[in-house]
C-alpha cells in the first residue's frame, strides 16, 4: 500500500512525532511514579538524589530543545527543498509551550513549594528567572494563535507575531547560561546552535534584499 505524501504526514509522521514529543514527559513521570512506589524502580526511572532538580532539568532542556528544533524547520525546508516539513512545525512549537508550562509548574510546586512570596521575589529579582518568565509569557500568544482559525484571521500579522519565537529562544538560552555556576560548555553549545539558526535567516534575508535591490527600479528602491 502506498500513501500519498500528504497522508504519510497525517497518518505516520505526525503521530510518530507526537509520541516522540511525549518521551521526556514519560521519563519524568515514570521517575516521579517510581519515587512514589507506584512503579517498580529501575535505572531508567532513577531520578537520583535530587529528583526535583532532575525533573526541572528534564523539562527545561526539552523546552529548549523543542524551541531550537522548531527554529530548525525553516532552514531544513530551504536546504532540502522539502516543503512538507512545515506541517510538523506547529506540533513542535505547541509542545515547546507545553514543556515550558510544565517546567514552570515544577518550579512553582516541587521547587518553590508554592511559596508565593519567594516566587514573586524570584521573578522580580533574579535575572535568570526574570528571563525565563519573560520567555514563558511571550510563548502564550504564540500558543493561542497557533490554530488555523487564528492564522487565517491574522493573515500577514500572524507571521510578524510569530517572529517572537526568535527573542523567546534567545531568552531561553540566556536563562540557561545565567544559572550555571561556572561550566558554560553546554549553554555555549545551545547558544552556538541558536546563532547558526538565526544567522541563517539573517543571511537569507540579506540575500533576498540584495536581489530585490538589484532588480527593483530606482523609485521602488527609494521605498525599501
Amino acid at each position, binding site marked *: 500500500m502506498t500513501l500519498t505524501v500528504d497522508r504519510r504526514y497525517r497518518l505516520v509522521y505526525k503521530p510518530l512525532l507526537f509520541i516522540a514529543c511525549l518521551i521526556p514527559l514519560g521519563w519524568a513521570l515514570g521517575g516521579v511514579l517510581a519515587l512514589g512506589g507506584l512503579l517498580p524502580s529501575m535505572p531508567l526511572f532513577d531520578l537520583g*538524589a*535530587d529528583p526535583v532538580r532532575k525533573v526541572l532539568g528534564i523539562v527545561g532542556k526539552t523546552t529548549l530543545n523543542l524551541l531550537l528544533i522548531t527554529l530548525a524547520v525553516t532552514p531544513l525546508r530551504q536546504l532540502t527543498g522539502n516543503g512538507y516539513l512545515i506541517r510538523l512545525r506547529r506540533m513542535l512549537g505547541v509542545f515547546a509551550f507545553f514543556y515550558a508550562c510544565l517546567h514552570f509548574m515544577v518550579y512553582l510546586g516541587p521547587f518553590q513549594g508554592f511559596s508565593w512570596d*519567594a516566587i514573586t*521575589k524570584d521573578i522580580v529579582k*533574579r*535575572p535568570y528567572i526574570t528571563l525565563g518568565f519573560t520567555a514563558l509569557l511571550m510563548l502564550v500568544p504564540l500558543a493561542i494563535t497557533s490554530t488555523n482559525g487564528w492564522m487565517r484571521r491574522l493573515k500577514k500579522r500572524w507571521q510578524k507575531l510569530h517572529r517572537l519565537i526568535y527573542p523567546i529562544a534567545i531568552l531561553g538560552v540566556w536563562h540557561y547560561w545565567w544559572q550555571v555556576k561556572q561550566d558554560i560548555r553546554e549553554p555555549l553549545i545551545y547558544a552556538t546552535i541558536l546563532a547558526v539558526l538565526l544567522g541563517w535567516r539573517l543571511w537569507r534575508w540579506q540575500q533576498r534584499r540584495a536581489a530585490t535591490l538589484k532588480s527593483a527600479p530606482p523609485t521602488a528602491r527609494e521605498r525599501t
Partner: protein
Amino acid sequence: MLIRRTPDIRPSEITPEAVFLDRRRLIAGLLGAGAAAALPAGEAPALAALKYTRNAKLSVTEKPNTFEEITNYNNFYEFGTDKEDPARNAHTLRPKPWSVEIAGEAEVRGKFNLEDILKPHALEERIYRFRCVEAWSMVIPWVGFPLGDMVKRFKPTSKAKYVEFTTLLDPRQMPEQRSANFPWPYVEALRMDEAMHPLTLMAVGLYGRELPNQNGAPLRLMAPWKYGFKNAKSIVRIRFVEKQPRNTWNVLAPDEYGFYANVNPKVDHPRWSQASERHIGDGFFAKRRETLMFNGYADQVASLYQGMDLRRYF
C-alpha cells in the same frame, strides 16, 4: 616528636602506573570477592571500616541522609560539573598512598604520610548539617577529628593568621583538571580562629567507613556552619599564612562568593535566595526548609564574627 618525615618519593613515582593499577585490581579482588565482584570494573576497592566513637554532643538529632544520597550527589568539579559526575568518575583518584605537605608559618613543616598525620588522633563520628551554596542541604554522619588538634601539632607561629587548604592537582587522577576554564588546584582557607574552633572537623570517613573518593578521600575539611564549597576535599597541602588567601570560588566570581561563606539566610546569592533550602531526601512534593543562621550553629560560632558586617564579609 609526633611526626616523622617521610622520603619525598612516593610509591606512585617509582611504580609504573600499569603495574600500580593491576595491583589495585588485585587488592580489590582479594577484598571480599562478593562485594568487589559486584562492582563495575575500575571501581574503588571496598571502603575499610574505621574505629571511632560517637560524639553525640556535637551531633544534630535530625535523620541523616542515606549513604546513596551522600555519595551520588556531589559537587566535585575535578570529576565533572554534574552532581552525578563525581560518583561516576572519581574511581580514578588514588587516595592510598597519600601525603600531605605542611608549609608556611609553622615550626613543623614538610611532607608527611597521611597515616603518620592521622595516628595521634582518635576518630569520632559527628552528624552535621550540610548546606550547599546552591540552596540544597543534607545531614551527614562524618568521621574525623578536630582540625584544631592537628593544627596545634604543627606549632603555627604568631604570623599564622590563616590556614590554607589545597586539593590535589593531578589531571591523571582528576580528569576534569584538563579543562582550562578553572584555576586548578582548588584552594580554600579558614581564619585561624575558625580553624581552631571545636566544630571544625578534618573528615576521613563517612558512615563509619573511609571516605569514598567522590566525597573527598582521603582527607577533607568540614566546617558545618559554612557553605559546602568552603570545605576543601582531597587535601594535599596545608599552609599557614599571614595574609588572607584568595579562595577559588572567590577568584572565579568575587561578587557571588566571598571568603567567609557563612550560611546566612539574610544575605542572598546575587542569583538566588538563601532564605530557604531544599532538603535532599524530603521527597518530590516536600516543602522547602528554612535556612538557619550559621546553618543552625549560631550558638557555637556567632561570636567569631561579632561586630562584622556579614553583608560585606559574605
